[in-house]
């Protein structure tokens, strides 16, 4: 989970240095967070669909 926030910190560094890779970095951070969300989806939702 720590890497999620490292990626966001790098994104912030990109904003302050006005780097072109900032927006791709933000998208990588979002996608990695989604991967971590999927990784932590272990408990079943208590509903019978």
């Amino acid at each position, binding site marked *: 989970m720590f890497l999620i926030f490292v990626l*966001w910190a790098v994104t912030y560094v990109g904003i302050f240095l006005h780097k072109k890779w900032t927006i791709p970095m933000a998208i990588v951070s979002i996608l990695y967070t989604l991967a971590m969300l999927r990784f932590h989806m272990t408990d079943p939702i208590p509903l019978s669909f």
Partner: protein
Amino acid sequence: MTMTMNDPATDPSTIRLVQVMRLINLVALVGLLGVLAGSLFLQFGVGEQPCPLCLVQRSGMIGLAVGPIMNLMWGLRPAHYAISILAALMGSAGSVRQILLHIQPDDPGYGPPVLGLHLYTWALITFVVGIAGISVLLLFPRQFAANDQGILKTPYGLPWWILGVAMGVVIWVVLDSLVIAASVPFECGLGPCPDDPPDIDGAGVVGGGLYLLGLAVVAMVIGFAVVARQRRKVSSES
């Protein structure tokens, strides 16, 4: 018959619209700052450690803040708004997942409720309001015609102290995000986080409040220093 066209980059009504949009972005950032500061208060003041899904939602909040920060630092662009929408969608996926885990009527939910709702429900409301708000802002495409380069390069006559406060808020959000980042290894190490982390000894209401106040003061000092440096640079060039 001749027609005169105003240059959108210097048209007063366009500049006014840019100023209004900047103000809305700043207010949104202050709102997100409240959420991030509240989560830090719960963690360090009350001693309640965040669960993995809470960290996903914090990541969504940090991503939601990236758009307004880029709009203020780089100038208003549709891509900046897009990043915030994508981050809000990601964060709301975490919120919905956590709401569904506690959906049954006899489930007390995770953590203490605030104003009758759990924090993950408030987070979902924040993400949805964020997406709706950005959608409304995108209804005004003339804001992009001014070729805005951000509050430092194109202040459009804004007083220096307003620029200082705006930069202070930006730095404050970044500092809060960095503190959140720095706290994760202490809770989870470098691997996955425990599903139900144990509470820790918090610093109490006063201690947590002083901690947040300290962060605010540091952020404002850095914000005003950045603006003062930019003013010196501009005056030496002219």
